[in-house]
């Protein structure tokens, strides 16, 4: 499997709208890269540029040491799997999987060997004589993957392949994808807006917002060391709770609460004395008791944990996740704090030269 280098990729549409800004990424051989971000952040556009379905406005795309920036899709040796499967309804599963090879006028025997090998990997051997409409969503998606596998491409591209499946099937397909990646040792670029998929599948995640790359790193890094407020709130469910406040005399203060900082926090925030910063705490890192008063609005027992929704000092809405079964009622006031080892600090959002708001950078 080859390496892929994406250098300073820009996409500007005819109307002047810029969808992707200066995208840089080096993908290693056999790596599973997940592009994650909200709708309209440019992740699918980036993938389509790599596939050759969109022109690259500026930048370079190098696949296996070959400059593919201007190459048509058929010369890039990549395979793409779409959200809507894109199977031919009038063909059998076998014919669907063999289609690209038939177009290349491959020998029938070789086509058969490849299709059967892919069907074996994907557990589709008993479905080969059926038509796509006779299969379930998960099976259809496997066929779409099979069609990609038989081509032995240099790079697999997946554009939200699990979005059409129900939650249970999505879970099992995720596990199958992990196994498939290991089995094929394939280099994969995978687009999703689902952070669970991103965290479970990726070797590295590329988190995007508004066409910009916000952070590239392995899943645990994005979760534990978010680069900015966007990544902090996007990765993790429920999202991280954010509080604006000032650093004053070893305390984080705002109108809602006064939070004493630990020695470690003071060291980190020594350049921010008297300045406004953002304190971030994940719902699962909220502890009891603590110096902050939470007015409970809702208590959701999920079996293995409880989500407690409430307003800090009756004003700022936050969510807490407690490991045990809780029975708080609306109107209860509980004392909460933040796990000192897991609290994050960020700068306030800044503005770029065009007046666009940038997420606040992490303070470490």
């Amino acid at each position, binding site marked *: 499997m080859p390496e892929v280098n994406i250098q300073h990729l820009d996409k500007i549409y005819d109307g002047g709208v810029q969808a992707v800004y200066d995208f840089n990424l080096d993908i290693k051989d056999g790596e599973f890269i997940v592009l994650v971000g909200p709708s309209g952040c440019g992740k699918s556009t980036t993938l389509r540029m790599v596939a050759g379905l969109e022109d690259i406005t500026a930048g370079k795309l190098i696949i296996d040491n070959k400059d593919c920036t201007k190459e048509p899709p058929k010369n890039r040796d990549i395979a793409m799997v779409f959200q809507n499967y894109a199977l031919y309804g009038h063909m059998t599963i076998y014919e669907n999987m063999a289609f690209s090879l038939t177009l290349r006028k491959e020998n029938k025997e070789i086509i058969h060997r490849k299709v*059967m090998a892919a069907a074996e990997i994907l557990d589709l051997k008993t479905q080969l004589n059926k038509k796509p409409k006779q299969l379930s969503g998960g099976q259809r998606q496997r066929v779409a993957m099979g069609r990609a596998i038989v081509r032995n491409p240099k790079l697999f591209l997946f554009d939200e392949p699990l979005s059409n499946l129900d939650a249970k099937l999505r879970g099992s397909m995720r596990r199958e994808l992990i196994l498939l990646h290991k089995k094929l040792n394939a280099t994969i670029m995978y687009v999703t807006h689902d952070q669970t998929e991103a965290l479970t599948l990726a070797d590295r995640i590329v988190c995007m917002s508004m066409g910009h790359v916000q952070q590239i790193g392995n899943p645990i890094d994005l979760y534990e060391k978010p680069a900015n407020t966007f990544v902090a709130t996007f990765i993790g469910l429920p999202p991280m709770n954010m509080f604006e406040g000032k650093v004053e005399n070893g305390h984080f203060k705002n109108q809602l609460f006064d939070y004493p900082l630990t020695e470690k926090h003071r060291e980190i925030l020594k350049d921010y004395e008297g300045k406004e910063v953002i304190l971030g705490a994940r719902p699962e890192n909220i502890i009891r008791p603590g110096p902050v008063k939470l007015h409970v609005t809702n208590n959701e027992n999920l079996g293995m944990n409880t989500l407690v929704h409430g307003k800090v000092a009756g004003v700022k809405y936050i969510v807490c996740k407690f490991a045990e079964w809780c029975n708080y009622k609306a109107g209860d006031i509980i004392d909460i704090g933040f796990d000192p080892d897991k609290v994050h600090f960020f700068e306030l959002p800044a503005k770029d030269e065009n007046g666009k708001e940038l997420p606040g950078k992490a303070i470490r």
Partner: protein
Amino acid sequence: MEKKTPDQITISHDIMRYKKNKWAQVLALLGLVFNCLYFMLLYAENDKYFYKITIGISVILTLIILLATFLSSENVKNYNKTFSYVLLGIAAFQILRIFGYPLYGLKNKILTAGYFGFYPTPEQSGIIFTIFVVYLVASAACLTGAAVIGWVQATRLEAHMKKVESGEVDVMQVIKRMDEKDSSNAVHTVSDAVLDEALKNATAEENAQGEVK
């Protein structure tokens, strides 16, 4: 031409499990087309005797042959041996038809149908008779070809399926063997042993991380 190895033969037989017998189907349909050309010419004849007495029977017969041929073409496509015999029967009947109205018309010099701007005189009946014979023989030949190909392929598939079901042949093993010999045309996968090793290492790594935490 290079002689096929036993593995290649197994693969070519296994392909039939997933591919229709299109040759047999196309030949059967071609036979049907020649039959259509035959009856178009037949019904262009303006012989009063034929129109009064036999036209009803002829139309019914034609319809039956059309339907039976089409049904057979669909079945031989799916490797149904029985319909190869039906096609052979129809082919034989097409030959017999030469000795029906075409021969009667030739003897009585009544084959005078206008055909593509050609209007034969009663003395030229032989020309139309020849065209009738060509259509019927061509139809019979196509149907026979379809029947033979259908029967041979169906028999091969039947034998292959018996071997697969009895475990005498394991297609996946054959493919693996061929892939080992010709890895450039194989789906590139990590072997189970390597995968198991990787999974073992990953689990050990996770456990070690857990202990550190």
